[in-house]
């Protein structure tokens, strides 16, 4: 594992940044929610809050999974 990690890093030396999946998915979530709120498509807090919590939880889960795979 140690060797493979080194080899993998050597294969991709030009990589300067990694995608922040939490930020990416949260950004998409906020944009969609903002549009739906502005167009009055969402007027019920019982819709807005679960969507917000579920979306953020999903984003966090994806972020954790990506970090776990990167740390291999």
């Amino acid at each position: 594992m140690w060797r493979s990690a080194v080899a993998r890093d050597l294969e991709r030396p030009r990589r300067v940044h990694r995608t922040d999946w939490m930020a990416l998915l949260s950004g998409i979530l906020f944009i969609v929610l903002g549009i739906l709120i502005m167009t009055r498509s969402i007027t019920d807090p019982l819709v807005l809050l679960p969507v917000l919590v579920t979306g953020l939880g999903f984003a966090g889960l994806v972020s954790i999974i990506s970090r776990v795979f990167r740390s291999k």
Partner: protein
Amino acid sequence: MCAPLVLSHDGGMTEAPSREPAAPPRVLRRSSEGRFLMGVCAGLARHTGIDPVVFRVGFVILLFGSGIGLFLYIAAYLLMKEPSGRPGLIEQWTHRDFDADTVMALLTAVLALGLGINLSTVWLDTGTLVAGLFLAVALLAAHAHGVDLMKLARSMPERLNRRPAPSDLDVPAGQERVTDFPPPPSPPVTPQPSPRTSEQPAAERPAATAAHASVPPETREEPLRPYGVQEEDAPGAPGHDGRTRVAPAYEPAEPAEPADPAEPPVSPAPAEPEPITYSQGGYGTGGYDAHERPFAPHGPYQPLDPAKRTTWSPYDPALYDPARFAPPPAPRPVRPRQPRSFIGAITILLATIIGGIIVAVQAASPSGVQPTVVGGAVLVTLGAGLLIAAWWGKGAGLVAAGTMVALLIGVGLMFGGLPAKVGSSVWVPTTIEETRQVFDVGVGDGELDLTELTLKPGSTLEVDVAVTLGTLEIVVPPDTRLEVHATNKVGDIQVDQSLRGGVDVKLDKVLEPDVKPEGEPATIVLNIEGGVGDVEVRRGA
């Protein structure tokens, strides 16, 4: 189960202090102190340092939210060790030993299994959301505490196959145990009258063993040590087969007979201790001193070293010592401090500017400021900033800001919808056309003066008025017939001399004109929808 025995300087037989593993794995046991039911939550709280109320509330939410809480509690009860430290039920049934991380991983697996069952049966419902949320929180918490989830998952087969320490299991007296696990963690030392023995036949013992028996007892006055492990762990020692060698430290006691009947028995002869000399061999060559101990040129033999045990495995997380057995870990690269990112600050500043522009534009419009549009625009701006931050990092602050804005919008929707505008409002309509709108105060104080209206005799005018938070005062002409249909969530509704207050107030009232008009009186129908605050309807002068 016998503790290791050595001879004391006075010739008496005593037990050596028990051995402890170099890195004893943390165990997760139920707690009998402060428990409600079985001590599961108290044990989890003691282990994690979190208030047990958190775990109790979590189990209750999982119980009533999805039903998984019951199975999770039962699983925790079965998996966790007893408050006394004895193995849990599943450990007893399977003859295994689970450390704390293993138990927590198994509980997480139970929760994930419940979530999977929910997803496969009812797909998305409250139970699925609750279980998914708790699973995400559990994984986030584990990750935040530095748990390498992937490494933990890879080590699960090894962890699940760990055998319990001998002291944890009840073994009939006289029955030998075949061990492949490290010694138990410090069982209490009790006097042991039975002398030490070895399972090896006397004829098969090496000469060193015979020499050992002939050594005067005073030379055995040394720091107490586990006797059997020395024999077992010594490289090249007789019976050193790697895994099936019986650990003499836990052998049943037998009478202390010399290996060779011709040898003189050990006599309790008080004498001065003699220095220990290593007579032959060297470390790694199978050499032993006169006491059957492996040659240790660098000081006293350290049987507690996990690497010298026959059960040592490089994959056993409890015994793994990367400093000795793994290739030297690459020095952790010191990450250069990331350059300061201004994406978050710029995005928040941009969102503020956009929100302010929208407020300014809407404030000049007749409809007033619409917080819905402002909040949505701010949320979209923050989302766009997060998309940029996804590639250049440091977007955590924006996630928090966006979450707060969305929560504020949600709270606003929860309390009677978002207010259409904020501030004081005064309406004095003079024509019928001007009344064909909803006079929405939003947040603030509002006054609607209808005394300037010119109404035809016998006509009916319907006016809709709303307020979210604040006071509303409506003034009606004295020569009109008034029909009021008012609701208020919290506060008072006063119509002329009638007052009604409280929560979810509803008032329907009809008032005849105070001043008799010429001809048929006109009728004004007031539909008032109040939020939090007071509503007053009164006659004008």
